[in-house]
């Protein structure tokens, strides 16, 4: 297609910028790994090469798992992310299906409201939300975040699923209706199974967002044993001015691992979800 590309142009136009991008995006992870694998003596030795590990050691990992509730936080994070993703997908389908496939008065207005709801950031809501959760006596429980995370995720899931639902031809539904299926059966047995990629995209995206959430977790989770990874790490591993960098980096790396693993299996769907809104319009 572009025939005159020589090797030197390919190096300047592709490999050098690509290498720079790799270094820029990935060096913090390398630094996390290097820090977490060094013993304290080497870690805080100003004369040592910061990028090299002379004596690999797992002391920080062992210390992290022994001295903190890290595994409990991982479990909490997984539980909260799973529950809020399931709730969000269910409510998202109930919202998206009629909006994408049915004609009824008020549909246009509702679709716009969903888009606006997606853009309302939690920064705007956290003060009243904290007051509300406390008045409902849900402060310091995992239910508080399981209930509030879907407020961020439902509009997003609905918005993404609407796009997928619209791609299924109306005739399929009508054929099912003529064959005697109810609307409910046409939906659950004909249309929804065709939209599996949409569910995967919305689900994986919602899951990573829920793992990433910090503000509500910071507000609502005070007891160590019910904390999620982000609040656990910032709240308990950073003790006053003394930082335990080795343990902190071990925790940051281990805490990122579940998301990164799940993401690596579903990368295609994640990217589809990421770009759906902006490219499909």
């Amino acid at each position, binding site marked *: 297609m572009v025939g005159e590309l020589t090797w030197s142009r390919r190096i300047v136009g592709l490999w050098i910028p690509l290498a720079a991008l790799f270094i820029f995006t990935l060096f913090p992870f390398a630094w996390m790994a290097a820090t977490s694998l060094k013993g304290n003596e080497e870690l805080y030795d100003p004369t040592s090469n910061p990028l090299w590990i002379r004596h690999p050691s797992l002391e920080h990992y062992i210390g992290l798992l022994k001295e903190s509730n890290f595994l409990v936080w991982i479990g909490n994070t997984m539980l909260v992310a799973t529950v809020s993703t399931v709730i969000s997908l269910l409510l998202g389908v109930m919202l998206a299906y009629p909006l994408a496939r049915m004609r009824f008065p008020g549909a246009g207005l509702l679709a716009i409201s969903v888009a606006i709801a997606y853009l309302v950031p939690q920064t705007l809501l956290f003060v009243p939300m904290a007051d509300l959760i406390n008045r409902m006596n849900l402060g310091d429980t995992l239910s508080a975040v399981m209930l509030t995370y879907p407020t961020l995720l439902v509009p997003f899931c609905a918005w993404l699923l609407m796009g997928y639902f619209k791609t299924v031809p109306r005739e399929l539904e009508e054929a099912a209706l003529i064959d005697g299926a109810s609307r409910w059966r046409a939906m659950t047995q004909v249309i929804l199974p065709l939209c599996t990629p949409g569910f995967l995209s919305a689900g994986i995206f919602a899951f990573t967002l829920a*793992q990433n959430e910090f503000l509500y977790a910071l507000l609502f989770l005070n007891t160590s044993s019910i904390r999620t990874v982000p609040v656990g790490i910032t709240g308990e591993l950073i003790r006053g001015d003394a930082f335990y960098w080795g343990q902190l980096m071990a925790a940051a790396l281990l*805490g990122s691992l579940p998301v990164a693993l799940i993401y690596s299996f579903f990368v295609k769907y*994640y990217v589809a979800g990421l770009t759906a809104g902006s490219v499909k319009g």
Partner: protein
Amino acid sequence: MSVNRVLDAARPGVRAAVAGRLRWPRAWLERETVFSWLMLTPPLLFLVAFLGYPFCYGVYLSFVNRPVARPATFVGLGNFVNLWYDPIFWQAVWNTFRFTTAATVLKLAGGLGMALVMHQHFRLKGLTRALLLLPFIVPTVLSTVAWQWILDPGMGLFNRLLTYFHLADRGPSWLGNPTMAMVSVILVNTWRGLPFFGITILAGLQTIPAELHESATIDGAGTWQRFRHVTLPLLMPVIFIVTTFSIIFTFFDFQLVYVLTGGGPANSTHLMATYAYAVSMGGGQLGLGSAVALAMVPVLGVVLLLMSLYVRRD
């Protein structure tokens, strides 16, 4: 096309055939409007209760004086008047603007570059894309803690490298002085958000038909001209949407600054979001904190309005 038209014409017939067979409760349930609203009611109730109501309650809170664990007293616009005379509030507003503008420009420029680099043929492209997107996947708090360690004045990576290669006796205090702290906060936000721009713009690039470039080349257009007159105009819709999204999420950012600097030193990196948190949770002034949060709405509205006007003018 014609098949669709026939089916469209048949649609009332479909409805009649379906409705004709059924008796009252089923026939009623099968009506589009009824079915739709039955489906919509649970999620809408949820969103009204946990999104709509808190928002209205927040508006109410901004008009009252409400210390934690004490009843509210109505103060009218008192909270907003207090903010008007609060230098830290204005500092936070100014910081939010600087932060959002600088980070968005950097992410857009870098993301466009990343997309153009990635839009070439090379091996392991899927893997490359997956790896470059990692900063966006990893929980923000965790990567921000890592950045805090990278930027640590004494033993952090940056200053260790500077001293190890004898580029400086002692590196700068990345988070310790107002200017550097703002630069650092912008840098970390850019690091995290750049892949989002890159991958989304790349997806936009891939929708541009290759024939357009070929015919432009035949007409004698060089690389820059093809970029300026073919690629860029066709990318504008994608760029506009990504940028708008990013502005909103950067403008309301909380966790990055809260973890990296806590708003300091001397409020130099406080954003409106972190200041709202400091006032309401740190200072216990729920009403005043609500007012700070609400003050973001018109500011953001103006930004988005100006942007859409600017785009329409083109």
